[in-house]
C-alpha cells in the first residue's frame, strides 16, 4: 500500500473507531460522578484496616499488591530486555565514534558554578527521594515515585559534571543486583506470609501507629523494596542508553574528530 491508500484506510477506520468509542463512552455516568463501590470501600477501610493514610499507596502495595508485583516485574523484565537488545555484539566493529557536534565546535567545559550547584542539589535530592520512599503510606509518594527521584541523582551528576562522573557513581553490576534484590524481595515478602499460614502477599507485620513512618506493616517494606527496584532499574536503563549514545565521551576518545 502506498502512503495515500494507507492514510485513507486509516481515516475511514479511525473515524469509525472514534465514533464507536464515543458511543461507548456516552454510557459512562459522566465525569465527576464516580459510581463506586470499589474506591469508596477502600477510602472507608484503609485507615482502619491498614493504618495507612494514603489510600493510593495502600491500594498499590496491599489491596492490589499483586498487580504491583506484576508491574515491578514488567519494569524488571523490560530492563533485562533492553540489556539484551542493546548488548554488544561480538562482530561489532570497534568503530571510531564521531563526535556529536559540528566539526571544529568546542564544547565549553562545565563551569565550576554549575558543578557546585549540581553537588548542592545532589544531597537534597537523595534526602527527598528517601523521604518519599519512606512516607509512601502517609503522604503522596511511595516506593515508585521515590525510586524515580533517587534515580535522577546520577543524572544530575551527569548534567553538571560529565559522563566520567556519572560512570564513577553508578555501577552496572551493583545496580543490576540491587534491581534483582528489589524485585525478588517483593515476591519473597509475599511468600513469607505463607509461612505464617496466610495467603500470598498478606501483611504479617504489626501495623503500628497510624501516621508513623514505620507503620502499615508490609506496605512499608514493599514500598522500600520497590524504591530500590525502581531506582536501580532506571539506573541500569540509563547506563544502557548512555553506553549507546555516549561512548565517544569516554576518556581517550576525547580528542577524536569527525574524519
Amino acid at each position, binding site marked *: 500500500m502506498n502512503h495515500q491508500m494507507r492514510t485513507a484506510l486509516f481515516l475511514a477506520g479511525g473515524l469509525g473507531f472514534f465514533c464507536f468509542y464515543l*458511543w461507548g463512552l456516552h454510557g459512562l455516568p459522566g465525569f465527576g460522578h464516580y459510581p463506586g463501590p470499589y474506591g469508596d470501600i477502600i477510602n472507608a477501610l484503609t485507615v482502619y484496616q491498614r493504618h495507612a493514610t494514603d489510600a493510593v499507596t495502600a491500594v498499590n502495595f*496491599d489491596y492490589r499488591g499483586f498487580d504491583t508485583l506484576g508491574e515491578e*516485574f514488567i519494569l524488571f523484565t523490560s530492563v533485562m530486555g*533492553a540489556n539484551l537488545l542493546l548488548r554488544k555484539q561480538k562482530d561489532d566493529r570497534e568503530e571510531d565514534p564521531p563526535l556529536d557536534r559540528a566539526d571544529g565546535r568546542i564544547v565549553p567545559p562545565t563551569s565550576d558554578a554549575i558543578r557546585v550547584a549540581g553537588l548542592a542539589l545532589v544531597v537534597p535530592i537523595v534526602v527527598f527521594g528517601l523521604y518519599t520512599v519512606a512516607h509512601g503510606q502517609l503522604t503522596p509518594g511511595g516506593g515508585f515515585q521515590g525510586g524515580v527521584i533517587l534515580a535522577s541523582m546520577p543524572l544530575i551528576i551527569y548534567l553538571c559534571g560529565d559522563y566520567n562522573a556519572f560512570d564513577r557513581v553508578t555501577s552496572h553490576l551493583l545496580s543490576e543486583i540491587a534491581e534483582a*534484590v528489589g524485585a525478588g524481595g517483593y515476591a519473597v515478602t509475599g511468600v513469607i506470609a505463607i509461612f505464617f*499460614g*496466610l495467603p500470598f502477599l498478606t501483611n504479617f507485620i504489626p501495623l503500628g501507629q497510624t501516621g508513623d513512618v514505620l507503620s502499615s506493616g508490609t506496605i512499608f517494606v514493599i514500598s522500600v523494596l520497590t524504591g530500590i527496584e525502581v531506582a536501580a532499574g532506571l539506573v541500569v536503563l540509563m547506563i544502557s542508553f548512555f553506553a549507546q549514545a555516549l561512548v565517544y565521551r569516554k576518556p581517550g576518545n576525547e580528542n577524536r574528530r569527525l574524519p
Partner: protein
Amino acid sequence: MNNFLPASPVAVPLIVAALLAAVNRHIPRRIADALAIAASSWCLLACLFLMIRSSHGLIVYWMGGWYPFNGAAIGISFAIDPLGAGAAAFASFLVVVSFIFSAHYFDSIGTLFHVLMLAFLAAMCGFSLTGDLFNLFVFFELMSAAAFALCGYKTEESGPIQGALNFAITNTIGAFLVLSGVGLLYGRTGALNMAQIGKSLGQTHDGLVVAAFVMITCGFLVKAAVVPFHFWLADAHAVAPTPVCILFSGIMVELGLYAVARVYWTVFHGALAEFEAQTRLIFVSVGVLTALVGAFMCFAQRHIKRLLAYSTISHTGLMLIAFALLTHGALAGLALYVLGHGLLKAALFLSAGMLLHHLGSIDELKLRGKGRDAIRVPVLMLLLALGLSGAPPYGTFLGEGMIDDAAKTLHYSWISYVFMLAGIITAAAVLRVAGRVCFGWGDDLDRSQQEEGETDEGRETSGGPDIPATMFIPTLVLLLLGIAMCFIPGIRTRTQMAAMAFTDQAAYQQKVLEHASPPNYETPPQESLVPGMVRGGISTLLAFLIAGLVLLPHPFRRGIAGFSGGVSFILRPLRLLHSGHIGDYVAWLTAGVAVIGGLFAYVIH
C-alpha cells in the same frame, strides 16, 4: 500448602528469575539451566495438581487475604478452573521443553534468556489463573514485555529487529485497547473482579457494554493474531529464536483466545445473551476469514518458520470459530484442539530449528535435497504434518470432532469444510517442505518465486555435524504426546465437564463472591468418532495429493499450470497486503476494530 500452591506458579518463577538476574554470569550455564528447569517443572506440577483439584469446583484464592466485603471484591483473586490451570500447565510444559531444547543456544548472554523466559512463564500462569480484569492486563503486559525482548534476541540481523518492532507496536496498541475497555467497565460498575463486573452488568447491553466488549476482545485478538490483526505474528515467528517460537505458537497466541473466552463467559455472557446468534455469526465469519488467509499465505512461503507461522494463523482462525460457537461442547473441543495443535506446532518449530542448526538455513528452496543426511527431521515433519490435517489419532482430530458435533446442533455444520480446507492446505505446505528437503523433489532455486521479503535467517547455534539428543528427543516427545493424548481415558468427558464449569457464569459468580458450593453437572453423552475419522482421512489424502502435485517434476506439471496460475492470481494481491510496513498494520488494526464494532453496533440497534 493450600496457601502457597495457587500463588506458586507466579511466585516461584519470578523469585528464581530475580535470583538468576542477581547472579548473572557468575554461575555456570548448566546450573542456571537446572534452576530454570526446576522452577518451570514446579509450575507444571503445581498447575497439574490445581487442574485436578479444581475439577471438583472453582478454587478461589484471594491475594493478601482480602476477601470480598459485602459482596464487593477489594483484592485480587485467582479463580482457578481446570481449563485455566490446564492452559498454565501446558505453558509450563512448553517452557520446560524449551529450556531443554535451548541447551545449545544463547551461550553469549549469561542468564538473561532464563530470566526472560521465567518472567514470561510467570506471566502466562498468572494470565491463565487470574479472576481480575486489570490483573489480566498486567500479566498481558508482562507477557508482552518478555516476548518483545526475546523476539528481538538476534540483534545482529536486521530481520529480528523489524519483526520485534512490528510485534511490539501492534501488541502494545492491543493492550491499550484492552485497558480502555477495562476503564469503560470500571466506570460503569466500579469493579475490577470479573465475577463482580458480570454480576453488576446483569442483562444490560447498551453502547458502553458493547464498546467495552469489542475493545477488550479485539485487544486480545491482536495477541491471538486474528485477521486483520494478524500481521505481526508471521514477522515475529519468522525471526524469534526457535525455543521462543514454540512458546509463541504453542501457547501465547492461544492465550489471547483464552482471555477472550474467559472474559466473555464471566463478564459479558449475561449481557450479550440476547444477541448470541449474531455474536456467533460475526466471530465465525472472522474465524473463517482468518483460517483461509492463513492457509493460503502459509502455502505461499518458502521461509519455513514463516510458513509455520501462517499455519498458526490459519489454526487460530479455526480456534476462533470453535470459540464463536459459544457452547460448552465446542469449548471443550477447542481446549483439546489447542493442546493437540500446540504440541504439534511446537514440534514443527523444533524441527525447523534442527534444520537451521544442522544445515544453517531455513529456506525451503535452498535446502532442497539437503535433508538426506539428517533424514530424521523431514520424516518427523511429515508425521507432524498429518496432525495438522486432523488425521486420527492426533490430538487435533479429537478436538475437531467435538467442535463438529457442537456445530451440527447449531446448524453450522458447514464449518467442518473450513476445518478440512485449512487443515489440507497447511498440511500440504508442510508435506511439500518435507518432500523437497528430504528427497529433492520439486523445483530448484532457479525458478524461485519472485520473493520480496526475507527468505532465510542466520544460525542461532554454533551448528554441528549432528543433531544433539537435547534437540531431537524433546521433539519426539512432543509428537508422541500429541498422539498419546487421544488415548487418555475419559479425556473428552473430563474436558466437557470442565468446559461446562467454565461457561457457567452464575456458578462462577456465586463461588467467587459468595463462596457458594458448585453445582453438579451431569456427564455428557459421547458422540461417535467415526465421522471425524473419515474427514481426517480424506483431508490427509488430499494434503498428500496437493503436496505431490506441487512436487512433481517440471514436465508433468504442465497440466496443472492453469491451476497454479489461478492460485498465484489469488495469492499475489494477498501477499502484497502483507507489506511489512508497520503503518499498514496499524491502519488494518484500526479498521478491523471499527468494522467489528460497527457490526455489533448495528446488531444491538
